């Protein structure tokens, strides 16, 4: 035996290694290129609208005046969706992971996953044809009894095609995303920690509060952010359900509009500077989503020391 036997290597195995590492590198780079390409396209196309004189932009008072009601509308719809969907999703996920008998749990999980497979246009159709009609009496009630709150100020929309209805439809749409992600996270809670809590005399709920929820915290935040991403960008359902209009504080009157729905409704007939304006609106949405994700990352890293990953 000489030392050359150590320096020689199996040709085939090594070339496979090279191909694999090149392929993964290419895939990784591709993502960055695509992201960068989209961002670049948005900026270049949006630039004319951003620098154009105010009176040329729709509304006649410049891009900023045009966009900020849309930003607020988008945020309102998304926040409504998350406020409704997050507690329900966490509740369902906890039920599936820690309370339900095994058979029921897998069936329920399957049904929830099916919800995610329904196309958004179907949700939109359901929202406008069924939910909006059925829910408008309760809007009247809200206007009558809680009308002193600006968000429930009357008169309520007779058709029910309001931002609140859109938010509820969005909540149903983001529910499966948050549920299935948090369920997976909850199932990963180490048995050891659950038993530690139980052995201290914790009830089931106390055990969940001591171990499952803190352990799942980063996962819950990620799941909610993914849900928020979908809610912010959802186009078809909002475009169908919402009878859009100027920004209003009341959630039960017609009015408000989201960026994505605004783009979808106006793009087909747009030309010239109007196209640039809509793309600039898209850029704003892109920036909002990016910002939201970075904030979420920040929250997760800030608590890394206590995350259970170390």
């Amino acid at each position: 035996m000489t030392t050359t036997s150590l320096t020689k290597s199996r040709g085939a195995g090594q070339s496979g290694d090279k191909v694999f590492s090149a392929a993964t590198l290419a895939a990784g780079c591709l993502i960055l290129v695509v992201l960068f390409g989209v961002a670049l396209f948005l900026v270049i196309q949006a630039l004319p609208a951003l620098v154009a004189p105010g009176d040329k932009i729709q509304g006649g008072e410049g891009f900023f005046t045009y966009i900020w009601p849309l930003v607020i509308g988008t945020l309102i719809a998304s926040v409504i969706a998350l406020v409704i969907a997050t507690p329900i999703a966490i509740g369902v996920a906890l039920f599936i992971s820690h309370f339900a008998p095994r058979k029921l749990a897998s069936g329920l999980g399957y049904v929830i996953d099916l919800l995610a497979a329904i196309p958004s246009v179907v949700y939109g159709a359901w929202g406008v044809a069924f939910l909006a009609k059925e829910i408008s009496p309760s809007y009247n009630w809200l206007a009558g009894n809680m009308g002193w709150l600006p968000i429930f100020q009357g008169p309520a929309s007779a058709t029910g095609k309001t931002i609140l209805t859109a938010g509820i439809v969005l909540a149903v749409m983001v529910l499966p995303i948050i549920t299935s992600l948090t369920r997976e996270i909850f199932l990963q809670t180490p048995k050891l920690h659950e038993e530690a809590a139980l052995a201290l005399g914790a009830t089931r709920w106390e055990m969940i509060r001591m171990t499952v929820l803190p352990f799942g915290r980063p996962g819950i935040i990620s799941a909610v952010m993914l849900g928020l991403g979908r809610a912010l960008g959802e186009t078809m359902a909002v475009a169908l359900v919402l009878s859009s209009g100027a920004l209003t504080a009341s959630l039960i009157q017609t009015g408000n509009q989201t960026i994505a729905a605004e783009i979808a409704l106006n793009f087909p007939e747009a030309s010239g500077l109007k196209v640039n304006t809509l793309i600039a609106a898209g850029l704003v949405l892109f920036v909002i989503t990016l910002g939201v994700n970075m904030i979420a990352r920040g929250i997760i890293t800030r608590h890394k020391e206590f995350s259970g990953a170390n």
Partner: protein
Amino acid sequence: MSKRIDVKDLNVYYSKFLAVEGVNINIDAKSVTAFIGPSGCGKSTFLRTLNRMHEVIPGARVEGEVLLDGDNLYGPGVDPVTVRSQIGMVFQRPNPFPTMSIRDNVLAGVKLNNTKISKGEADVLVERSLQGANLWNEVKDRLAKPGSGLSGGQQQRLCIARAIAVEPQVILMDEPCSALDPISTLAIEDLINELKDQYTVVIVTHNMQQAARVSDKTAFFNIAGTGKPGKLIEFGDTPTIFSNPTEKATEDYVSGRFG
């Protein structure tokens, strides 16, 4: 502040499978009792029936009685949650809550039972429990840091501090040193010796030297073959079990001839 445990004709089942059969044992207060035996003989399973932790596994149930100073743990209307708050447990692998600081780990059980505890009382309790677990001097300057940053042996002592903070009647230990190095093991063994002044301690161990070192009484469990239930073979004073056992199987096991 410690109670005795008397077990009468206890059978433990996992669904239909009989895992442990016909255990009768009397565990004295303020003593250390060791359970030894080969793997799979049911000693951990039996230990977990003493604070109803086996019920965490679906389908697990028992027949017979476990009396804590005369009160049956399996009597009607007995809440397993209450049982567990009186009979603490330390596990095979250290399991401090990773999302809590060292201080909060110690207080975890106390906060469950009594949510209103002033900061001053909590400080006293944290110091007393950590001192009781021989950990105070090592962690007193970093109580706000996560418990998962400690070494394995320190984590296990933190778990013991967490268990004694609720002032239980009995402390069960399920192979508490099996994941630790010899020095940490020694620290835990010293601690067990101190704990028995105040608590009834029951420890499962694979390490016979450890059983000989720490326990007053030793119980030997064995199993006739795979699929057969585990049984308590012999129970007596530790020196007797190790030097002059009555049963042939015990002698074979402690002298290292099998298992």
